[in-house]
């Protein structure tokens, strides 16, 4: 389980996070929801140790962030993370060389699924193709948790469908997934748990199915309540 405990972050005099706390369990898809500037991306980066918190703690299966964690948690940001001069096959080779849990077979499957050409240069990829390649590098790691920042941002309809298919596949099964997205409508049926962030704090944290059954509300309905109140 990933535990975010009282996470606080300040940039100059502006508070981005003001004591956000929530958990991400294995085998569930958790969606971090918030308006622009709510601190969603900052939280993902903080979990990955890419930006320090002003205060608060983050634990992965009870342990603080450390180098070994990167074999257990993978992060798929909304932009490329390999040098633009590399070709796709070189990027895959880089991942295989540096990560013990790299699954080359899975990577080949995903490359075929997304119809990516290994000889293309990373710097020449369109936004949609770059997002797909990002998913390859993130999902071909046999990690227990996957973090995704806006996987659908600026991507065409057919590519979105392909990426959404990944969520329904065994590539995600059993893993703990934490993602941020603005396309809640499209993703709602794939989400198990929603965490609503507002002004740097978690205002609602609920199981989507339980909410539907108990109160007859969709995630969007709860969002309206939380953000329009």
């Amino acid at each position, binding site marked *: 389980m990933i535990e975010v405990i009282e996470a606080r972050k300040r940039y*100059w005099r502006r508070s981005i996070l003001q004591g956000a706390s929530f958990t991400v369990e294995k085998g569930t898809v958790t969606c971090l929801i918030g308006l622009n500037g709510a601190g969603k991306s900052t939280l993902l*980066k903080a979990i*990955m*140790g*890419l*930006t*320090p918190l002003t205060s608060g703690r983050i634990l992965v299966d009870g342990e603080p962030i450390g*180098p*070994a*964690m*990167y*074999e257990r948690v993978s*992060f798929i*940001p909304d*932009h*490329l*993370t*390999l*040098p*633009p*001069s590399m070709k796709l096959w070189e990027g895959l080779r*880089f991942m295989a*060389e*540096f*990560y*013990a849990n790299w699954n080359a077979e899975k990577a080949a499957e995903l490359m075929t699924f997304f119809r990516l050409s290994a000889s293309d240069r*990373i*710097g020449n990829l369109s936004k949609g193709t770059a997002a797909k390649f990002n998913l390859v590098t993130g999902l071909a790691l046999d990690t227990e948790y996957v973090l995704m920042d806006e996987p659908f941002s600026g991507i065409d309809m057919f590519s979105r469908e392909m990426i959404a298919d990944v969520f329904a596949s065994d590539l995600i099964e059993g893993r703990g997934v934490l993602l941020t997205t603005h396309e809640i409508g499209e993703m709602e049926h794939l989400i198990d748990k929603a965490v609503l962030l507002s002004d740097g704090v978690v205002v609602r944290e609920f199981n989507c199915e339980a909410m539907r059954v108990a109160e007859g509300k969709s995630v969007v309905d709860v969002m309206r309540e939380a953000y329009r109140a």
Partner: protein
Amino acid sequence: MNRYLKLVHMEIHRFRYILAALLGLVAVVQWGALVWSARRMDAALDEVEKFGRYTMYINELSDRKISYAEAIYNAQQLYILSVLAVIGTLCAYLLFVWYRDWLGRSTFIYRLLMLPSARSSIYLSKLTAIVVFIIASLAFQALSLAIGGVIFEVLIRGDRQGESYFVDIVNATLVLQYLMPLRLGDFALNYGLGIVAVLVVFTGILIERSYRWTGIAYAVGYVLICAAAIVIPINVMGMYRTSSYLYTAEIVGIELAIILFVAAVSIWLGFRLLRRKISV
């Protein structure tokens, strides 16, 4: 260790074209300058032999021979320019080697910081790559001088060739004197100081990357303090004064301790920032 070596290989691989172009430039400029200079001197000698006219290259006192060192001396501006181009590019690369991973559409720093190994290996791999580039440039300069010697022998008639020793060749230009000091102690001091300067700049960059806008002031302050810590004691203790209170060996010892301290603090701070403060 294995991942560190892979990172070093990758850093070298990323700079290979720029380094090859730079060394190619050194070869073209230095050999071109040598050919131009040697031909002019050879033509001047022709003038003396045929018409008895002396020029700035050959006067009444000269032995009517042309040496390789003299040919370099007469074209030293171009030698200096080519070496400064390499030094300038390597200095710019000190910044580029970090900032290119943060800037642009693809931010490689995300991946580097998420590697399942100690983050200090990122710092050390970039440092090692720079040291390799410096050694490669130095080795190529030595090779260029050796090949230049062959070119000189081909260009100038045997009976006109004067003797040239390595010491004369190095002393022919100021830049080569600094680049290839003939005493081992000077060599260690020049390149040791250079590497400490790289460490200080690297840590300055990491301070800026950790604290951003305020970090710029901290980074500049850090670099200035380190520079002052190394330079001021030399003047205060009077290394070049005969009336100094301390012996030269004592001043050198103190200075060496300061340099090692600055290097150790820079490495420690750089590692700590990478581990705890760095932000993408």
